[in-house]
């Protein structure tokens, strides 16, 4: 029915440190269909973030190395693309929000500048008015009030929830096709966690996003996803329709997670 927007084939990623080599993602393959919510679940250390970062071309920055495999976005292999070509996609067609809003905003740059940069980097000719308009639209979409004050603040002056909304506004600034959310509620208060998850799922519907969400929480996985993949020690042990997996898990590890 729906077209495949991402195809990951036999992807293996490792980290080499002075003491050891960690194979964080092992021969992983899966497809993401346009418009669906695809959830990757797994315990901490199973390789979820490593996988997500590879989709955003962040592996090398993290000190990792893609050993083999392909990531096809609309039929084009991202791993074979030159940097400049990928740069046009990042933050424009494929965006990501991260695990810990605390550390993902630059502490010494005003929030307003960091937000508008998401727009200007892909629209270097934009006029001041245009930038202002786009930025305030994005802030409205993530339901931030008091935008004037927030705009002139530094990250440490804002709450965790506000920061995560800001990171989301940056990610959706250019109406991307794919949004990757890596455990977007870690480190937030329980009451705010639900608000953020609901906001993301609402944005997915209103903006027609394809959402790839990462979580270690099975309840969240079941509630928000159409398709899910279970990761364990760098491998995908089971993937498919979410309700199908919950009703009838095939893999022992999946059963373990569901019964916990």
């Amino acid at each position, binding site marked *: 029915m729906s077209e495949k927007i991402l195809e990951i084939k036999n992807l293996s990623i490792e980290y080499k440190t002075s003491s050891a080599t960690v194979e964080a993602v092992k021969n992983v393959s899966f497809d993401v269909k346009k418009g669906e919510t695809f959830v990757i679940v797994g315990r901490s250390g199973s390789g979820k973030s490593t996988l997500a970062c590879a989709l955003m071309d962040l592996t090398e920055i993290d000190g990792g190395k893609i050993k083999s495999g392909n990531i096809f976005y609309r039929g084009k292999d991202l791993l074979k693309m030159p940097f400049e070509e990928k740069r046009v996609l*990042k933050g424009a067609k494929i965006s990501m929000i991260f695990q810990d809003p605390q550390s993902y*905003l630059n*502490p010494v740059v005003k929030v307003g500048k960091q937000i508008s940069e998401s727009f200007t980097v892909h629209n270097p000719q934009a006029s001041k008015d245009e930038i202002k308009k786009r930025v305030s639209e994005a802030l409205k979409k993530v339901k931030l009030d008091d935008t004037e004050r927030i705009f002139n603040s530094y990250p440490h002056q804002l709450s965790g929830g506000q920061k995560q909304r800001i990171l989301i506004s940056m990610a959706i600034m250019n109406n991307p096709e794919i949004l990757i959310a890596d455990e977007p509620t870690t480190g937030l208060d329980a009451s705010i966690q639900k608000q953020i998850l609901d906001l993301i799922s609402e944005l997915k519907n209103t903006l027609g996003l394809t959402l790839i969400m990462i979580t270690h929480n099975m309840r969240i996985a079941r509630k928000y996803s159409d398709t899910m993949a279970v990761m364990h020690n760098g491998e995908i042990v089971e993937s498919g329709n979410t309700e199908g997996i919950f009703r009838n898990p095939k893999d022992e590890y999946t059963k373990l997670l569901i019964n916990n």
Partner: protein
Amino acid sequence: MFQYLIKRLLYSIPIIIGITVITFAVMYFTPGKPVDTMMDFNPNITSEAKDRLVKLYGLDKPVHEQYWNWFKRVIVLDFGNSFKDGRPASEKIIERIPATILLNILSIILMLIVAVPVGIYSAVRKYSLFDRILTVIVFICFSAPVFWVALMLMIVFGLWLGWLPISGLTSFDFNELSFFAKTWDLASHLILPVIVSTLGSFAVLSRYIRSGMLDVLKQDYIKTAYSKGLSERQVIFNHALKNALLPLITIIGLSIPGLIGGSFIIETVFSYPGMGRLGFDAIMARDYPVIMGIGVISAFLTLLGNIVADILYAVADPRIRYR
């Protein structure tokens, strides 16, 4: 913030007094007394004359009394007269300050101009050929003794090539020169001392900036920046640089005392008319008032440098500024 500053200033007072006590004690217990060194140069002094001098300077009193007498005068900013030529110590010190400041400001500027780009570049291109060559150069700069480098440069550029003067700050005929000739004369005298005093700090600073930059490049907000689609250049200039350079403020603040204190070795080797050489000569002559004067000023400047560094840091880093 204001209250904090007052507190810091008040805390500095006992520290400065402590430093002067230690300086005085070290000076007093060092072998060789002022009067002895004077006599070495003038064998005609009789022992009565010597006794009179000892009395005059109050050197016959016990050490704590000597210190107390010195302290009482310093409170009213009287640093005493030099044992050597009888001129006020403060006057001797003040006239040396401009030359030392000139030398040190130039070296700090040169150090920043060279070390910052070099440190940043070797971090961004870690383990590249450039980075490796630099590592070697830095270790040479760092480990070569300053006096040896100074002498080598003097031999090569001063004696063999004859391009640059090797001592002093100006030539004998300085006053007769035209404006441009004066400028060149001054500059040519400064080139070698500035280079020599920059080498060591260049080595330390460029390594420091390299490791700071490497640290910043591992931070999470750098990932955010790349995931927005920024180029490497934009990430470095818009996001990494400011974070990596913040600690520089502390370093510059901490170099303020050296700015005026001057370097004993460099100024002595180049016969440079600054505070460092004055200090060296004063110590050789056991010229207590001058030594103590320099000690007080250096201690004061060190503490002032610390406070200034804290203020600048607070101004530059929003996380501290708003606390």
